[in-house]
């Protein structure tokens, strides 16, 4: 529970006491979250911790039942996805939310086409190429339907789409899950570039390596509640894992201890010296 944002930073987005229920299930309970300009916040948590629900509340897909959301200093209601987009919150969803029957350009500009009454296809296509180049995307042509692209290519298109329209906050739900080695590095580079440009980035990931590589702060959710907040540069993985699972004695630590015991018994050092122990 360490990091304090440096005083020069301005808080872009701040949630206080946000709750969301689905029927009898409390998906989110009293969630607090702050995102500063030029900061990468990683949200981690086990399956069912409420990460994706939180993303959907911020993106306007679901509405919070209670609590307040402050964006750029003023209280806001995010009633629907277009409200989020107008505020400047862009989201890359886990399922990417692309239209398979439309081509790359059409998907990139969906809902924000240039000149609505006489679509400017040329300008949109040029801008699409610029964006895709910026992401080093490996997409041969932008005039084929999304259906013909691979998972990683689709991911790049979804990320490129979030960059259109100059958002202030970008939310990435599992941005590297479907990506190859090179693309993962590109996305991590991109996240750093976004931070340099002064955007607030919220990144959801299961991959602790990615989190430690780019995040400034790690926010842990557990069963729909805040369960710890760490400085990503100093925290150890085991602390985060403990917060994720809710105890220092958990399945991950037990497994690690068991493996260590095995190694000691057999006298074979270092072959199981996995990442968990660092």
């Amino acid at each position, binding site marked *: 529970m360490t990091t304090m944002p440096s005083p020069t930073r301005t808080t872009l987005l701040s949630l206080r006491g946000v709750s969301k229920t689905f029927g009898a299930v409390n998906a989110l309970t009293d969630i607090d979250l702050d995102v500063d300009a030029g900061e990468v916040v990683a949200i981690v948590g086990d399956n069912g911790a409420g990460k994706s629900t939180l993303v959907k509340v911020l*993106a306007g897909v679901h509405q919070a039942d209670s609590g307040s959301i402050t964006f750029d200093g003023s209280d806001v209601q995010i009633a629907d996805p277009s409200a989020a987009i107008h505020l400047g919150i862009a989201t890359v969803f886990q399922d990417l939310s692309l*239209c398979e029957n439309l081509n790359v350009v059409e998907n990139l500009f969906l809902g924000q086409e240039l000149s609505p009454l006489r679509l400017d296809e040329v300008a949109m296509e040029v801008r699409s190429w610029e964006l895709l180049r910026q992401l080093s995307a490996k997409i041969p042509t932008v005039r084929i339907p999304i259906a013909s692209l691979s998972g990683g290519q689709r991911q790049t298109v979804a990320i490129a789409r979030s960059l259109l329209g100059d958002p202030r906050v970008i939310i990435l739900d599992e941005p590297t899950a479907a990506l190859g080695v090179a693309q993962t590095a590109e996305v991590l580079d991109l996240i750093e570039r976004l931070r340099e440009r002064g955007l607030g980035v919220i990144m959801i990931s299961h991959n602790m390596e990615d989190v430690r590589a780019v995040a400034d702060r790690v926010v842990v959710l557990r069963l729909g509640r805040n369960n710890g907040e760490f400085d990503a540069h100093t925290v150890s993985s085991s602390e985060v894992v403990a917060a994720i699972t809710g105890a220092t004695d958990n399945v991950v630590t037990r497994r690690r201890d068991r493996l260590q015991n095995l190694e000691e018994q057999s006298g074979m050092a270092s072959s199981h010296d996995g990442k968990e122990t660092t």
Partner: protein
Amino acid sequence: MTTPTTTPPRTAALDQSDERLRQSEGLRGALKSFLDSVRAGDVGALPVVVGLLLIGTIFQALNPVFLSSGNLVNLILDSCAVGVISLGIVCVLLVGEIDLSVGSVSGFTAAIVAVLFVRHNVNWVLAVLIACVVACVIGLLYGVLLTKFGMPSFVSSLSGLLAFLGLQLALLGTQGSVNLPFDSKIVGFAQLDFVPPWLSYVLAALAAVALFLSGYETMVRRRRANLSARPLNLLVIRSVALLIALELLFWYLNQDRGVGWMVVFFVTLVLALNYAITRTRWGRSLLAVGGNAEAARRSGINVRNVYWSAFVLCSLLAAVGGILAAGRLASANLSSGTGDVNLNAIAAAVIGGTSLFGGRGSAFSALLGTLVIAAIASGLTLLNLDSSYRFVITGLVLAIAVAIDSLARKSRVSHGRA
């Protein structure tokens, strides 16, 4: 025949620079990529054009009157009313919904116009406007039932089919039919008004010039932005082909009565809807909602309004089609909009290549599909076969069209183009 508009050092165009992309330049490239896309299941209008040629050949062989000027003039006039209704069906099919009540709505609105105009002496423009407003309300009702109550359009429009047929019968009363006077504008427009021959040739020329100019403008803008563009000679060939085809067609029709103003009206509607679907944000949102409604919603599209606009436009076009049909028959009666009108309008859109599964289709499918259906109806009438055969054959053609749609969809999936 290539014009160097801006001649940068011949680097690959922005959209042709990926090394995996096969270069397709010039006429041969265009032809090759067309064949490739057909093979992959992007059949477009190809089956229906082949179908029209087949139908023409068969019926002409059976009865030489079929392709005569007089019969073609009638055939084209007959297809307009259903064609306009079918345009509306294209809109709802694009968002992945259906309206089964277009026939009833067309009959109901035709009855409104006829009763107001003939029995109550209301000005015909006002009568038409009132009917159109009623149709818009009907469309809005379907939209609200779908978006607020989650009622599938299949069910809501099926109940609408029955309800509006009932209202039509109630409105027409015991007499059961209202004849429209022959000197009225509505009948004149649908039956008697033809474009003067000289004007029809001018219109054909204008169409070809417009096609060329829009293609040329796109080409120049794309070249300037360093994107690949269609070669100029392809644009010229395309425009000249359209010019020759239209001038020949109009010349042939002018041997008889010529081109009806109703036909010009229908084609104008097709072009307008085609523009709206392909070149406006609204059209793009129709396709997006038909492809993946949740993704469209998350992109900030107001999905509810898109559904509403599609249903309102569909009912409105059904009303316009119904009024044209009444004008063509010079009467609104108990059988207006009943029988096969409903199925013909839906079949026309599907036969023309608009997918029943949503998110794929074009305004031209209504034009081509209605021509197929009108050609079959006309050919069978000439052979003195009664309507039982017509129903069977139209049903078969619809089945074939849906089979082609499904097969093409499968092929697109396996070629990664779904």
